[in-house]
């Protein structure tokens, strides 16, 4: 037997032993090889692959070393001779030639019709992306209602609103409005005293401050401090308590007897409704707690969804 085959077998043995040793070591070193292999099919597959790789590698190497040892140059010489240095006929393998030609054809297509000159642009790709996304959104979400809409609203809320209103929509200790209730005492009181210039429902008329609020039940006398406290508590407690007659006298003419607002005149102050929330999202808001920016970048559906989610938060209040 040729010495090189002997070496091949020795090297194979060493490499397989090393593979097995590594496997046992990584398994904790306490089991033997057969135990490791019976434990998990991944180990069996790995060692089978390793054995195949080692054997193929070693014998491919042997093939080429043998070829270098015993092969001699041969074949048909070309007719040309350069200072007695000849050249064998050595045609390109067919597969190679085909790939070469295909590459050339592809290259021409690529330059003429493909990437660079055929009006590719980064912004164009972005615009296509947006169109595709909007189409997908339209197809999957444009008509959703009910729980799925609220679910979508929750995800929009978590992305856009939680930064101020908090994860549980409680307004993070007064940093923003608590959305679990319609309106807080602090806010009502501030609005009654200072008025509201949010113009959320109509551009022309904003709610007057205390100077402009008269109690119709008391011959249109300006509203007093005590009345402000009473009506604020009444509204903040969900239209219950002692301020009812002040509300009827000073507020009901715009906000309605039941406080549910009037279209284009005054917002609903008992519960959240779509109309009000859409207006807040479109125009932002400025009040005693701070300023809320407008959310123009949300789509109409997203605004609807987040409104539905907010309405769902305060159900039963």
């Amino acid at each position, binding site marked *: 037997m040729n010495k090189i085959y002997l070496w091949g077998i020795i090297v194979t043995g060493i490499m397989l032993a090393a593979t097995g040793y590594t496997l046992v070591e990584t398994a904790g070193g306490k089991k033997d090889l057969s135990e490791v292999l019976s434990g998990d099919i991944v180990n069996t597959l790995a060692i089978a692959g390793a054995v195949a790789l080692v054997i193929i590698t070693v014998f491919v190497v042997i093939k080429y070393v043998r070829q270098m040892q015993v092969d001699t140059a041969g074949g048909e010489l070309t007719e040309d001779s350069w200072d007695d240095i000849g050249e064998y006929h050595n045609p390109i393998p067919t597969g190679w030639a085909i790939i070469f030609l295909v590459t050339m054809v592809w290259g021409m297509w690529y330059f003429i019709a493909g990437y660079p000159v055929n009006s590719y642009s980064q912004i164009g790709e972005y615009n296509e992306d947006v169109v595709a996304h909007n189409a997908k959104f339209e197809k999957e979400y444009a008509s959703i209602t009910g729980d799925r809409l609220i679910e979508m609203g929750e995800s929009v809320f978590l992305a856009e609103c939680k*930064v101020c209103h908090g994860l549980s929509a409680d307004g993070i200790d007064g940093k923003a409005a608590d959305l679990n209730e319609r309106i807080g005492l602090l806010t009502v009181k501030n609005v009654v005293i200072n008025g509201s210039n949010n113009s959320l429902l109509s551009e022309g008329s904003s709610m007057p401050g205390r100077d402009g609020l008269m109690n119709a039940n008391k011959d249109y006398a300006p509203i007093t401090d005590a009345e402000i406290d009473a009506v604020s508590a009444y509204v903040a407690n969900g239209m219950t308590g002692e301020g009812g007659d002040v509300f009827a006298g000073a507020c009901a003419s715009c906000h309605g007897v039941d406080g549910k607002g009037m279209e284009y005149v005054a917002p609903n102050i008992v519960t959240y409704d779509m109309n009000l929330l859409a207006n807040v999202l479109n125009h932002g808001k400025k009040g005693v707690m701070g300023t809320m920016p407008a959310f123009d970048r949300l789509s109409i559906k997203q605004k609807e969804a987040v409104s539905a989610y907010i309405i769902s938060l305060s159900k039963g209040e």
Partner: protein
Amino acid sequence: MFHWLEKHPFFFALSVFVAIAFAGLVEIIPSFAQASRPLVGTTPYSTLELSGRQIYIKNSCNACHSQLIRPFKSETDRYGHYSLSGEYAYDRPFLWGSKRTGPDLMRVGNYRTTDWHENHMKDPASVVPGSIMPKYTWLYTNEADIETAYAEQLTVAQFFSVPYNTPIPMKDGSSKVIKMADSIAEANADALDEAKVIVADMKDQSIKDAVANGKIPEIVAIIAYMNSLK
């Protein structure tokens, strides 16, 4: 001449380089210059905003926050319209940043407000649960350096012809004048006027008092800068 060049490979190579470089410059520079001209509606920074920008750089905000929105749907959904080169016309240096440990701030003025920044810089985790941004409490006690901001205004106006005190066209067809003061005292007074508008929306009484006493804490300047990023 060409004969001579062919016999001197070094000078031949040099001439080739010069010829190609010249052609490149002629092609590239005009389009760069065109793209970096200010967009309609891009205005230079006012004194207080520029002071805030210097505070932004001083505190290495740009190490964690980028100011470059790439044209990807996911980014434009979150941050707004992708950035255009003309929008950086008055940024010296630009603050694109290369890493987003925090979010991009290119258009933060569109979706955050003065009082939010006030809460956030004092204790980021109180408004963004899990935020790893440190508290920047010294912004509430340090005073903004209006004089350096004014010096920067003077410099950019003189050397880069930044259009202060000239009408700048806006998107809606109107025009806007960004004022640069004539003296340090006037610059201080202008900055204080801007600061008064900002603190009207703030809650911290010590900041309000400081501005009422003619001082401008750093927080006011940096909020002015944040609000100007649109």
